[in-house]
């Protein structure tokens, strides 16, 4: 194993199963199963297992079913309140995004002790968050074009504005639209990266300070308490970022679903 005190080491991609590299459009794509890929596979596996166990049709739900229905109800309420009645159609997509991000985030918090891929936070990988962001925005574009046809481009030209303003407004709208996947990706990536690094650094302090005498021991205790508090905070952030991702997905979908009222 590599040095565990390097706070960046936890983000290092490592191959678990070697698979061949393929060339697509001149791009070499290494299909090996890495710790990041394995963590994502685990997340998907856990979501499916969880919902297979939780999706019982009991009128009086058990604990697992209650939690499962609560998460579903949360996203359902979100889609309903932001998109309205049409939200039901996009609920599976929003829910998949939410559940995937949530499980990826939480795995890093829950299984970190294992020292294996299970504790790897796939959502701290820019490649992953950027793909998710692009997935969301491309879905938004697809939904917008399918639903509104050519009128989709009205999104960039809000009505009720004096026409000279369009010279200013349209470029801004286009820019703000193009920047959406980037902000989606960077927000999630930054939160996961920052939180994990801070945790690791403070945890490093616990050991480093503890080994340099009495005053150091005091600092070590402070650092330990900080790590404890930060861990609780990180759990909240893990949930909150998944929630924010889902909320923004709803908001962006709503823009194109209700283009007329834009």
């Amino acid at each position: 194993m590599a040095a565990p005190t390097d706070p960046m080491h936890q983000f290092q991609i490592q191959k678990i199963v070697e698979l061949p590299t393929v060339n697509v459009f001149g791009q070499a794509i290494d299909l090996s199963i890495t710790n990041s890929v394995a963590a994502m596979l685990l997340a998907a596996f856990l979501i499916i297992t969880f919902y297979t166990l939780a999706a019982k049709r009991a009128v009086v739900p058990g604990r697992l079913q209650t939690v499962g229905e609560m998460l579903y109800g949360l996203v359902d309420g979100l889609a309903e309140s932001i998109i309205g009645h049409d939200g039901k159609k996009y609920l599976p997509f929003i829910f998949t995004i939410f559940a995937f991000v949530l499980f990826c985030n939480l795995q890093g918090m829950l299984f970190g002790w294992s020292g294996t891929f299970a504790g790897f936070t796939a959502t701290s990988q820019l490649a992953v968050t950027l793909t998710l962001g692009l997935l969301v925005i491309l879905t938004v574009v697809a939904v917008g074009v399918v639903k509104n046809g050519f009128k989709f481009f009205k999104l960039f030209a809000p009505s009720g504005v004096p026409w000279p303003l369009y010279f200013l407004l349209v470029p801004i709208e286009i820019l703000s639209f193009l920047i959406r996947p980037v902000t989606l990706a960077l927000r999630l990536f930054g939160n996961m990266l920052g939180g994990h690094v801070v945790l690791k650094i403070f945890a490093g302090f616990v050991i480093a300070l503890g080994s340099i005498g009495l005053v150091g021991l005091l600092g070590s205790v402070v650092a330990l308490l900080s790590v404890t508090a930060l861990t609780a905070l990180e759990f909240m952030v893990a949930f909150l970022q998944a929630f924010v991702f889902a909320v923004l997905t709803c908001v962006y979908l709503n823009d194109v679903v209700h283009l007329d009222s834009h």
Partner: protein
Amino acid sequence: MATEHHGTVETTEAPHGQESSGGLPQLQFQHWGGQIVWLLLIFAVLYAVLSKVLLPKVSGAIEERGAKIAGDIADARRLKDEAEVQARAAAAEVAEARAKAQKTAADAKAKASAEAAERQAKEEAVLAEKLSAAEARIQVARDEAMGHVRAVASETAGAIVEKLTGKAASAAELKASLA
């Protein structure tokens, strides 16, 4: 051994077995392709399983529960309404029965008092009859007695006249003098 480019944490040796290009491990672009392809694959499978199999089950359970609760509440409301109607009917019946009972009692009272009055009248009539009969008897007896008084007076007068005059007065004279 790739310890060169780790910014502030250079002192810690980090023998990343891999081709660490330095800086953020997230920016080692040779790992991007694999992650993106795998993510799309995993996401597609997850989306398919959730949207086609699992989420319909969850929403079905929630809807069933909602329908069951709504149905049960509707049932309860219906039963309550029914019970209310029945209670109202029962109250009406009780009121009717009470009115009937009061009427019956009043009727019986009236009948009883009428009968009593009739009986009293009959009794009174009998008594009155008896009284008048008795009065008649008394009248007769008095008349008789009065008649006797006349005869006695006539006799006495005849005797007195005879004693005084020495001769008996005729019956006609006596009668005329006593009238």
